[in-house]
């Protein structure tokens, strides 16, 4: 089976480039990758292939997960982990770096501090480009692993009541996730203090598309009949002073009290790293899924690498 036949993308730049069918296909392939991702089976479908990890800003976890995904499939990796060691420090354009590095490897993974960097890279690269986060812009593999986790835990994505909590105003993870979920039949509840609520443009788009959503300020009240609670970090630097931050941060802590009246099937997700949003005591409950979610990054990235490199399973 040629995997590419059902996946026409040359690059993975933004989740907005995906249709529901394409998302579902990636998630299907990811499921078949699970035994290899967990080390229960071995695979060498990417033997002889080289991945270039071009990380212009540090993101150790994302970089390691791409490296693990490539190596689990028998491939190899080259790359750098910060702009300090790349030629950009000498003044080279990103376009030139990409032109050169794409001639050294079979696939390019790019992390860059400027928005739109991956789209630019896709225009200059002779090989597929995978966006591993560009500034406050897109991080499509995060969104795909979020969707994979929901589908794996709940059977399907549609039909779920999904609460999204934290910094909804500036958080790129939640914007991409909201966009992706709006392509499915879900009910979304946005939980944030008023100054950090979802931007009006996004809410307007949801309304125009006939998507049901609700807005709440208090996590304890919102959580009661949810199927999924997606928690994100509230960043200290968004607040005028420490006192204001602590007031809000305190009310956005998920702990055992938050979980008193929740549905048995509620799962709690978080893109990690977490700070104070979820107490450690929640880790041992049946609700926590954030560590599984992080682990799901491997099969999802394996699926994308296989699809972009057009290999047979």
């Amino acid at each position, binding site marked *: 089976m040629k995997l590419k036949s059902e996946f026409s993308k040359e690059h993975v730049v933004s989740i907005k480039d995906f249709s529901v069918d394409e998302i579902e296909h990636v998630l299907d392939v990811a499921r078949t990758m699970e035994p290899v991702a967990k080390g229960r089976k071995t695979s060498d479908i990417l033997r002889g292939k080289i991945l270039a990890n071009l990380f212009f800003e540090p993101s150790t976890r994302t970089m390691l997960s791409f490296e693990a995904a490539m190596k689990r499939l028998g491939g190899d990796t080259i790359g750098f982990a910060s702009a300090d060691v790349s030629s950009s420090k000498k003044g080279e354009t990103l*376009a030139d770096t990409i032109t050169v590095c794409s001639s050294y490897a079979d696939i390019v993974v790019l992390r860059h*501090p400027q*928005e739109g960097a991956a789209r630019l890279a896709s225009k200059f690269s002779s090989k597929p480009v995978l966006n591993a986060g560009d500034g406050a812009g897109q991080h499509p593999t995060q969104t795909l692993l979020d969707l994979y986790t929901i589908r794996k835990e709940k059977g399907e994505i549609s039909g779920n009541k999904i609460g999204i909590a934290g910094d909804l105003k500036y958080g790129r993870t939640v914007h991409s996730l909201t966009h992706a979920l709006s392509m499915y039949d879900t009910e979304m509840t946005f939980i944030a203090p008023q100054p950090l609520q979802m931007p009006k443009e996004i809410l307007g788009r949801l309304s125009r598309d006939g998507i049901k959503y609700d807005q709440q300020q208090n996590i304890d009240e919102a959580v009661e009949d949810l199927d999924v609670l997606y928690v994100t970090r509230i960043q200290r630097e968004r607040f005028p002073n420490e006192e204001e931050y602590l007031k809000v941060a305190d009310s956005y802590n998920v702990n055992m009290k938050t979980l008193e009246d929740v549905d048995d099937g509620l799962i709690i997700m978080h893109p990690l790293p977490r700070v104070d949003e979820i107490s450690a005591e929640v880790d041992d409950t049946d609700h926590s899924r954030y560590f599984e979610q992080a682990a799901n990054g491997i099969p999802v990235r394996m699926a994308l690498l296989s699809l972009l490199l057009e290999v047979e399973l």
Partner: protein
Amino acid sequence: MSEEKKTIKISPIKKGTVIDHIREGQSLKVMKILGLTETVVKDVVSIAMNVESSVGKKDIVKVENREIGSDELDKISLISPETTINIIRDYTVVQKKRVQLPERIKGIVKCKNRNCISNQREPIEPEFKVMSGEPVNIKCIYCEREMKEEEISENIV
């Protein structure tokens, strides 16, 4: 014709392009978009600003001896969608049409997002996809940030 005579303060031209119904105060930006502010332009260009018309005030730009192409003129719709174009030959209007918003915009507007890769030293021109015409809304193909009319007007290159 009698309406024209009442409102146009500058004389008719023999040959060229009359850009009419430009939004009040936008004529200098229109000239910038069309490259008419460059010193190499030798044609006679006349501007009338804040001219009274039946639907309020408007600006007019006349370019003598040059028939400006539709593709170029359509770029004006970004900041002044009601603009009409008159091609003049021998003092007669031989073609009249309203500007139309193109599907893609390249190189006229820069992205409002300072952290967008298109605002860095890279070998690319800013490029936008037109999302809607009324009101005008465009989206940067790089950072996906959307821009409204007043933001577009502030970011003409």
